[in-house]
């Protein structure tokens, strides 16, 4: 038996060696999750992009050809209903985001500076509703706000309103959609603000007091500016997901308080026009990209390499 066969049997072919190598294992661990998202999230967005320019069609027998007519109709068509809904929807989103931040700030402040000892337990108690089903919470609000719901019937029982006369704007209005979204986001927005306030160096506040600033001016000139990163993070945490909201308007919204997400949903279910619906979906993606370009640096989580983070 010659030595060559022995070495040939001992040393695996190059390809097999690669498959069992540490480098290949490392490649797999990084590539699997990356390719998964690439295939199931980026791929579909690219397809929607092609649909929005008419390059593909879901109608059997119809071959797509490049066309910008849907885009120009959405962007420049006179009195386009989806464009006006887009602006209404973004306004609702903006108002809800601002309201959620304003509502969450005193809560975060309370947790960080008043509830000092048990703050993590109280934080958990406040956050707990956030972890229950969103749909169930919207349904709960439906039960609260309905024309014969808890709030109206309570007012009747207390003789504060004539029996059977419901407050009309309580449900199926912009108010109800805004209220439910505010309700859903307040505890979540408190979190980043609380983290910033909780980590604030107390010596800075002491220093402001020692230098003669009152409590209120210390808040305005020291605490508030230092907590702004948390405020912006919370604001963006609401802003981005709410741009695509469609569940609350379906259950507690009326015809005038449907959001942009509802238009997208309708084009892919009730009245299918995938090409037009794709224009709206891509418009939403563009909005998110713009928001990330504006605010991304306030919310990007730290996933950098250890030595990059240290540098």
């Amino acid at each position, binding site marked *: 038996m010659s030595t060559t066969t022995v070495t040939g049997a001992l040393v695996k072919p190059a390809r097999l060696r690669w498959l069992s190598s540490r480098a290949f294992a490392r490649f797999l661990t990084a590539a699997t*999750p990356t390719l998964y*998202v690439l295939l199931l999230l980026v791929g579909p967005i690219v397809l929607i992009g092609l649909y929005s320019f008419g390059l593909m069609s879901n109608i059997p027998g119809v071959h797509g050809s490049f066309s910008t007519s849907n885009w120009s109709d959405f962007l420049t068509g006179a009195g386009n209903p989806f464009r006006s809904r887009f602006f209404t929807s973004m306004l609702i989103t903006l108002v809800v985001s601002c309201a959620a931040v304003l509502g969450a700030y005193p809560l975060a402040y309370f947790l960080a500076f008043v509830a000092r000892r048990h703050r993590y337990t109280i934080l958990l108690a406040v956050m707990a509703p956030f972890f229950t089903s969103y749909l169930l919470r919207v349904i709960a609000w439906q039960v609260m706000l309905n024309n014969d719901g808890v709030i109206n*019937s309570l007012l009747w029982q207390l003789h504060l309103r004539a029996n059977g006369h419901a407050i009309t704007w309580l449900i199926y209005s912009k108010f109800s959609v805004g209220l439910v979204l505010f309700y859903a986001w307040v505890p979540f927005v408190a979190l980043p603000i609380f983290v910033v306030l909780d980590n604030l160096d107390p010596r800075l506040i002491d220093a402001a007091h020692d230098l003669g600033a009152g409590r209120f001016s210390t808040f305005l000139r020291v605490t508030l500016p230092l907590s702004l990163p948390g405020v912006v993070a919370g604001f963006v945490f609401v802003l981005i997901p709410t741009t695509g909201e469609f569940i609350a308007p379906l259950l507690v919204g009326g015809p005038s308080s449907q959001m942009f997400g509802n238009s997208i949903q309708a084009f892919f279910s009730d009245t299918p026009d995938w090409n037009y619906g794709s224009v709206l979906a891509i418009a939403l993606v563009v909005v998110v990209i713009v928001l990330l370009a504006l605010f991304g640096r306030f919310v990007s989580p730290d996933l950098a390499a250890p030595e990059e983070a240290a540098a």
Partner: protein
Amino acid sequence: MTGVGRLGRALLSSYFGLLVVFLYAPLVVLLVFAFNAGTIPTLPIKSFSTHWFSRAFQDTELTSALLRSLLIALVNGLAATLLGVAAAVSLARERLPLRGVVVTMILLPLVVPYIVLAVGLVVLLHEFGIATSLAAVLAGHVVISLPYSVLVILPRLRTLDPSVAEAARDLGASDFKAFLYVTLPLLAPALLSSFLIAFTISFDEFAIASFLAPPGSPTYPVFLYAGARTPALLPEVIAVGSIVIVVSIAVVIAADVFRRWAERRIEALPEATPLVG
């Protein structure tokens, strides 16, 4: 001297009290109306009864929707955690080629609106000629759970002392065995958090499921949505919903108590059994 005076303390405390009432009122209302004997949730409640609970659990459409969602959530919890561990291990490495691409892909599901992902998956399935299915719902849920899983596991992975796994390798363990027997047990609290978060995301998810769950086999949220719009079904929806709310709040509290306990124990370990002289 603290930053809050007596008046500020009183104002903040009252605001906090009001907010807690606001946050819990709808949930309490749902819990109370689960026991309402009448069909319409309105005041005054004339009599209380538990018959909506028994009605709900006899409704096979409801119970099978619940089982579907529990199953998808369970598999999603495992799959997202598995992918999350793989991604976190890669990101924790000092050298990772194309790190920017990996980071972007992992975080991207956080910012893409679910409605866009949902219609995108509908288009993707259509292009490949695949019918909608519960597996497709699951595939979508893994996408949206992955970033949360990584954001829970990676910080924990970074706090681990790399010399512990090195010691295992020096003692002859392979890379894989060192990871399986040394690193993974130390990650257990983070893995549990990741599983629970992914489970919850999937169990509650409506947008993707409403597009991809095949007709006739809705997930629990899809059934809920239909039920909320059908007055005859609403009492059942409220009864089962109240159970889901109580269970999920109990799980959140239990998970937090366990996490604090487990992290304290694991942090106490190196002192108890010094591995490196």
